[in-house]
């Protein structure tokens, strides 16, 4: 059960659940006590990011964000919210004499920033991420997943992400296997006649798939 708001400002509530090996979903107008956030794969909302970042900076937790973003941009020294026209934009300091808007540093770092901020903004809730691998280089994915998982664990937030990327799935599995408690599940949805069926991989079955390079998608 989750109440969500997307980057376009739309909100609603639904619930989805696995029933046997089938996926069921239905609108659920009941109120939810947990905050949830939907991150679309194709719409960026830098203003929403700036607002979320400001809330973190207000309680002096901005360095937690910085250390995560350094996975993708080691030169990054600090973040700052600057006005661009009438809109606040998060900028980064790369020690080149002036700050640069985060979106100009690449899709991956903007994407990771949005995900991490959404997690901080959804404590005890759910963050839904569409095409989570988008913009992320495969070589950084394990570290990115470790950062996402650690942030989610601290915030007690569940991440539900979609992907078509084998590298991304493998990275999530490896990152979770390297943690104290394996907390990753892969649910593949497949259409069987008129139903959506679910195949769920746990650590052991994903170990086998990775070891033998079996297709899971």
């Amino acid at each position: 059960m989750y109440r969500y708001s997307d980057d376009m400002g739309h909100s609603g509530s639904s619930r989805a659940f696995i029933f046997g090996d089938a996926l069921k979903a239905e609108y659920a107008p009941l109120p939810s006590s947990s905050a949830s956030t939907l991150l679309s794969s194709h719409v960026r909302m830098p203003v929403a990011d700036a607002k979320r970042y400001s809330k973190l900076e207000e309680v002096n937790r901005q360095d937690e964000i910085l250390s995560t973003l350094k996975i993708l941009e080691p030169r990054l020294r600090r973040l700052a919210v600057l006005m661009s026209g009438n809109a606040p934009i998060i900028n980064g300091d790369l020690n080149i004499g002036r700050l640069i808007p985060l979106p100009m540093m690449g899709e991956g770092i903007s994407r990771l920033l949005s995900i991490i901020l959404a997690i901080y903004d959804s404590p005890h809730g759910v963050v839904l991420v569409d095409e989570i691998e988008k913009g992320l280089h495969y070589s950084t994915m394990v570290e990115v997943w470790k950062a996402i998982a650690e942030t989610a664990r601290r915030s007690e937030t569940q991440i539900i992400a979609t992907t078509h990327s084998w590298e991304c799935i493998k990275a999530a599995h490896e990152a979770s296997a390297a943690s104290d408690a394996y907390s990753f599940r892969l649910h593949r949805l497949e259409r069987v006649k008129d139903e959506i069926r679910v195949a769920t991989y746990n650590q052991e079955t994903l170990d086998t798939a990775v070891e033998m390079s079996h297709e899971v998608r």
Partner: protein
Amino acid sequence: MPATTQSISQPKLLIGEGAEEVRFFNAMLSHLKLGDIRVEEYGGKRKLSRYLQELVIRPSYREVISIGITRDADDNASSAFQSICGVLTNIGLAAPAATEVFVGDRPKVGIFILPNGRNAGMLEDLCRDAIQAYPDMQCVDEYFKCIHQKANRQPNNPAKARVHAWLASQVEPDRRLGEAAESGYWPWNSPAFDSLKQFLRSP
């Protein structure tokens, strides 16, 4: 590990313990012109359960109509067969009552215990049986007799030792079982292979 991910691309699946078995069976299937069987390895008898647990959730598994499981008998063919049946039951797949018989429906499941469903041994025993009548196998036997006399030792797996000694005597002396199969070393028309061929044709 292959560079790309492997999909179940055929309606029939034949699984063996390791990479040598995959090469061996693929060569045999090619000889038999059976093109609708995909051969995979499951990583040895201790990993069969893990392999099957993952198999049943793989994409396209619903399209699989038969699974042929092969395994070395090692010390006891009956124990090997019962072990596989136990794994199948735990996974929820049909377990046949006897070797070389397919049971169930989508997928049908059959088990072949190497070398021949009855005897102790392994794939090497089957290959040894197939070439046992070759004249040069007498040389191999004499070689091991000589080793025994001169060095007072014998290999603990005579069939394996003889097959590899025979392979080492070939013009290309470094081929293993699977590569030897691909190179046409094994006489597919030998009666030793009959029950295995029948198993491959049956599902």
